[in-house]
Each structure stands twice: as C-alpha cells, then as structure tokens.
C-alpha cells in the first residue's frame, strides 16, 4: 500500500488568531439561521412527523412479516433457517412435531405450529428475508411499531400472516406435485401413507 503524504501547511499568524474561523463560523450559522428562523426565512427542513408522513422508498427494510401465496396458503415451511440466522434472536419458531398439523397446501408437508417475532429485539437487518428458501418472510414498509407492553410486541404467526399479506411466487411445491401427477407412475402423498405395491 502506498502512502500519500499530505502536506500540512503551517497556519499563518492571522489564521492562528482564530478570527477567520470565527467569522467563517458566524457566516455559516447566520445563513442557516436566516433561512430557518420564523419571520426571516421560515423554511425548516424538519418533517413534522405524525401530521406529515414519509413516502417509504422501495427496498426499505421495515418490520419482517410472513406472507401467504396467491392461493392464501402459508408459505413458511418451518425450516427454522431464519431463526438460526437472526442475529438478535428475535425469531422463535415452534415446529409442528411428529403429529402436528400438516401444511395448509398440498405437498409442502409442514408449516410452523407457532412463529413469533419479538419486534423489540428485531434490528430490521433483513437476514431472515435473505435466508428464507421459501420466500415466506419479507421486510415490509412498517416502521412505526408500538405497543403498551413487551408481550404485545411479540407478534405471533396469526398476526404476522395478517400483516404480511400476499406474495405471489412460483409455488414450487404445487409445481412438483403437478409434475409428479403427470408422471402417473408414483402417487405423491401429502400425508404419511402406507407403502403400496
């Protein structure tokens, strides 16, 4: 790595008296004051928040919510990758277990029994969205999350799905099922079944 030596010019006596910087500072502060103060310029750049609302730009990382597919089915398959990757451990998933409710769409085999995000812990990093193999969780545009208790800020599966809305996708499990049905040679079970010959 090459080093660039920056020449430091010694300050002149005039500069060392602080007077030029004082005047410079006065100029800068006065210009801003003049532009902003009421009766002078009256043009503050502050956005008066609750009355004025901000247009959330594309790609904004707000609260993470679960989404449903175009047929209203839960996309999450409880793979727990997001729970694993989440840096502040905001996500907690209860897997379905051996006798749990199967997925609410054919062929996906499972979905979470419970899915909780503690919005007080979430840092809106987007890693859950990044890691999700099912495109089931997205950081959406909500930035103003409030509640009156800690418990209230833990969003459960129902709430997350309701807030998340729909995200149309390729529906890979459905696609696989259709492909298998087209081949006719092998039945595809959505529930554990007895092996037949």
């Amino acid at each position, binding site marked *: 790595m090459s080093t660039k030596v920056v020449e430091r010019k010694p300050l002149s006596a005039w500069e060392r008296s602080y007077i030029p910087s004082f005047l410079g500072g006065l100029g800068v502060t006065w210009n801003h004051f003049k532009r902003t103060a009421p009766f002078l310029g009256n043009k503050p750049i502050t956005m008066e928040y609750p009355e004025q609302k901000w247009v959330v730009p594309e790609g904004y990382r707000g609260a993470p919510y679960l989404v449903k597919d175009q047929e209203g089915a839960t996309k999450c398959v409880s*793979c*727990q990758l997001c729970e694993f990757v989440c840096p502040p451990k905001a996500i907690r998933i209860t*897997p*379905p277990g051996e006798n749990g409710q199967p997925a609410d769409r054919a062929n996906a085999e499972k979905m979470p029994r419970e899915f909780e995000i503690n919005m007080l812990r979430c840092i809106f990093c987007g890693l859950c969205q990044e890691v999700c193999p099912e495109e089931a969780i997205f950081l959406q545009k909500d930035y103003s999350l409030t509640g009156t208790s800690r418990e209230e800020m833990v969003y459960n599966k129902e709430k997350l799905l309701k807030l998340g809305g729909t995200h149309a996708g390729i529906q890979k499990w459905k696609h*696989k099922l259709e492909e298998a049905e087209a081949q006719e*040679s*092998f*039945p595809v079970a959505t529930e554990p079944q*007895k092996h037949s*010959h």
Partner: protein
Amino acid sequence: MSAPVTPPATAATQAAPPPPETVTVKVNGKTVQVPKTMPNWQGKPEATTMLQAARCAGVDIPHYCYHDKLPVAGNCRMCLVEFGTPMIGPDRKPVLNEDGSPKIARSVLPYEPGTPRGAIACATPISPGMEIYADSPATKQMREAVLESLLINHPLDCPICDQAGECKLQEYSVQHGQAESRFVEAKVHKPKAVDLGPRIILDDERCVLCTRCIRFTKDIVNDDALGIVNRGSYNTISAFPGKTFDNNYTLNTVDLCPVGALTSKDFRFKMRVWFLKETASVCTTCGTGCNTTIGSREGVVHRLEPRANDAVNGPWMCDTGRLNYKWIARADRLKEVRVGGRKSTWSTALREITAKLSTAPAGSVAIVASARQTNEELFLLKRLATKLGAITDSIAREGEPDRLLVSGDRNPNSTGARLTGVSFTEAGIQLPKIAAGIASGTIRSLIVFGEDVTQHGIDASLLAKLDMLVVSDILPNATTEAATHLLPGAAAPEKRGTFVNVKGRLQKFHKAVEAPGDARPEIEFLQELADAVAGPTGTSTIEGLFNRMTADIPAFGGVQWSAVGDTGVTLSL
C-alpha cells in the same frame, strides 16, 4: 478413547504382539506407512483399502455407501479417486526416474490412455508404492460428475427435510457441487412420506441408493426386510411384501442413511438439528449401557443417537433405548420437596431426616436403593447404611436378551450396585427380610431411592407402620404417595455420574438439561445427608467422590475420574 485398564500382572506375562506389517503409500504427495491389513466390518483382517489408507494420512475421501461396520458394496461411486502405481519394465523391474525415484504410472482408461480412470477408494486395496491423488483435477471432476448425477432426480427438499444440517449430500454439494443444474427435463418423482415401519418414514425421492439400510438390516440385524424394487431411474427402496420393517434396530438406518430418505417418526419435524446441543451420555434402558449422544435444546431433550464405542455398542443402539427419554419431560414429574405430604424446602427436609437418622438405634433403618442409580449415589447410600447398620438392597429387573445389544438385565447399573455393596450376588434377596423387619417393628425408618417398593413385597400397609419413609424418585408412584419425606430427584440426562455395565465397563455420562422445579441431582442431597450423618467425605465434587470411591472399593482398581474418557474403561472383575 482411553485404553482399557489391564492388570499389570497379565500384561507382563503376555508376549508383545508382533509389529503389524506395513505398506508405504503416498496420499496427496505425503508418504505414509499404513498397516497391510485392517479389520473389516466384522473385525476380521482384510487388505487395507485406499479409503482407509487416506484416512490414516488424515485425508477424508467423500463416500456414501461405505461404512466401517457394514460390508463394502461399492455402488455409489462417490469415492472415486485417481491413483498411480509404480511402473514395471519388461524386465519386471521398477522403472526409475532420472533422480532414481520410481516412475509412477497414473491410472488411465486402457483403450484411451489420455483419459484418467478412477477407482472406488472404498473397495480398492492398496499396493506398495501406490500414490493416491485425493484432490487432483481428475478426481475433482469425477466427484463433480457423480454428484451431478445423484442430484438429477433429487428433489432438493432441504427446507422440509429433517436431514438438513447433517446431510452428506448437502455437505458434498457445498464442497464439490455446482451451483446450477444443467438438467432441464422434469425430475423423476417417487413416493414421498412412505410409512415404512412403525418408527420410520421413507422419502424415496431423496434416496441415493447407497443400500446402507439394506445391508444393515440384512447383515447386522439378520432381518431381510428391505430391498430395492423397480429399475433404472425408478429404483426404489421398499419393505419386501409381507415383511414389516419393525425390528428393534430400525432407527439405526436413519443414522446410516447419508441423506434424508429415512427419517425417524419420533424426531420428524421436531427440531432442526443445528439447534441441538450434543451431550455424551449412556443409555439407561438395559445393562449394556450403549453410548449415546443427547440432542437437546434449551432444556428439552429432542433425541438420542448412538455414540460409537467399539468396546460396548459399536455405532448402533436399539430403538427401545433410543426412544426411552420422553418420560423426562412428563408433566407429572416430581418437582417439589414434600414433608408429611406438604410442600417444603430442601433444608427443612434434610434437617429433619438428619436429626432422625442421627438418633436412630442400629438396625432400625433399612435402605432400598435402585440399580438405576449412579455408582457415586450408591456409594454414598452404602456409607450411610454402614454408619446406621442398615440392611440394603436393590431391585432386579429382567427381560429377554437379544443377539445384538439388548441385555437380559434391564437395570443400567446392577454391577455398580453389587460393587458398592448395596445389593448382594442377587438383587432383591434382602427384601423379604426388610418386609419382616417392618412388620415386626424393628425397622422404624425406610429410605427408598427410585423404586416402587409396593410392587416388591413391601406394601402400603407395611409402609404405614414406619416412623419415617424417605423416598427419592423422579415420577410419582404408590411409594412416593406414602413418603413422609419426598425428595425429587433427577433423570440421567439431568445429572452426571458413572455406571458399570454388565460386562464391567465403567462409563461416564454428562448432564444435558436441568432438572425441573426443585428437583436436584441425588448426589447433591445425598452428599449433604451422608456428610451430616456419617461424617464428612472430605470432598464436595463428583470427581472427588468418584476418586474416593475407586480408592475405597478394590474392584474399581483406583481408576481416577480424569482417566475415564467418554467411552469408559473396562474393570477387571
């Protein structure tokens, strides 16, 4: 693995075994001396293979179908490697390079000498001077090709596959696979979520047809239940018609299956494996004491898996033992200290028991211990008994042994109970004596650990005659109901300790989860009690207690806690 303790006398009389014959080979350019023969799956010597030689050099060659303890099948081709052998001239002499080193002929196709030809490392024996190229470009190309072919019809179900995280297909795909698929046709679909047996679910699409499951079931369990049906791309693992896959070892195929084709019904969709904390433990279901790994997360045990130990269980364990953990999380676990039927505290209960025992006349106390307790606990109980002049015994549990692992003795520590002197040659012979003592009024206090004595000749009416009935247990039963002092104890995954199996193998196990509520590992309160009644042992740790015990009891041969590795040591009984 720690060396078994062999008595010095016998070691001196035996002649030193002859040094094994070795062969010199090169693995990835590194010269290694490897034994000429190595034990095969049955432990018989057989010519060393390239895969074993590479392992000796610290190089792991990817493989699916090969397994140390199964016959070699050589069908997955994952272990293909390029290799070279010393050239032999027409004069049958080695051809030498300019510098005098032997010239090596790389393996090539016989009819196409420019093309490297691999050999399956799992089944190809080594020869002197052989060179194994475990990561040459040709080897890598072969691996990539094999993986690509395996993935052609693979469903890539990872998000819903229980194997994800410990799947060899995932691992090798990351190491040697390609990011994109060149396959554009529809995949061949096969049955999914097939109920293969009472404990097993099969997903045929995920199977890589390594036949490990078939070989295990046929050659290890002697149960011809599994086979492959259909042809070509439609090859499918299946239970033979009329056969059910329900032997007591089926869950081992789940461990064996390198992919997520065979999964456990019990563990199905329960927890992702990467969350599990692994703790080395020992199965408590029978006297064999198979080594296990407990997978737990945040205080909940999710599964047990066998832990390889050639001196005890090899890499297997039975299904009964593997599933024998659910009672740990039962809601009716004893969680409260109870004195006179009311909730109390440890200090009150222990103070009262100590007071009572300290003034008890000799012979007025009896102790029924359990052969499910650890050596250290039994040792402390025996100390107490010696001080009090108490009769002690434990209770026998018998069952049908099988030809593989399951022992007829269904207590994990009968040997320990005998060695510590809690039970005699035969467990349970003292029980009638205790019952008679209570009936006649000479025995006024009874201490029971982990057993329901009402099932063994000391019924509730006898228990009612006692002044004090101290019971420590894990789950409620008729004896705990009758207890004047109830001390909630801990299950094996909730504590540390040692067992001695039926063959005299002394084994350690570790703590995986916390005991619920007020329950405490027995060793903690027994230590307090024994110290208060029988005088201090001079140690407060389990290590110290163990060392004290092995020093006091000759059969333990003075072995130190630190010398007992996670696979244990064999005692000479």
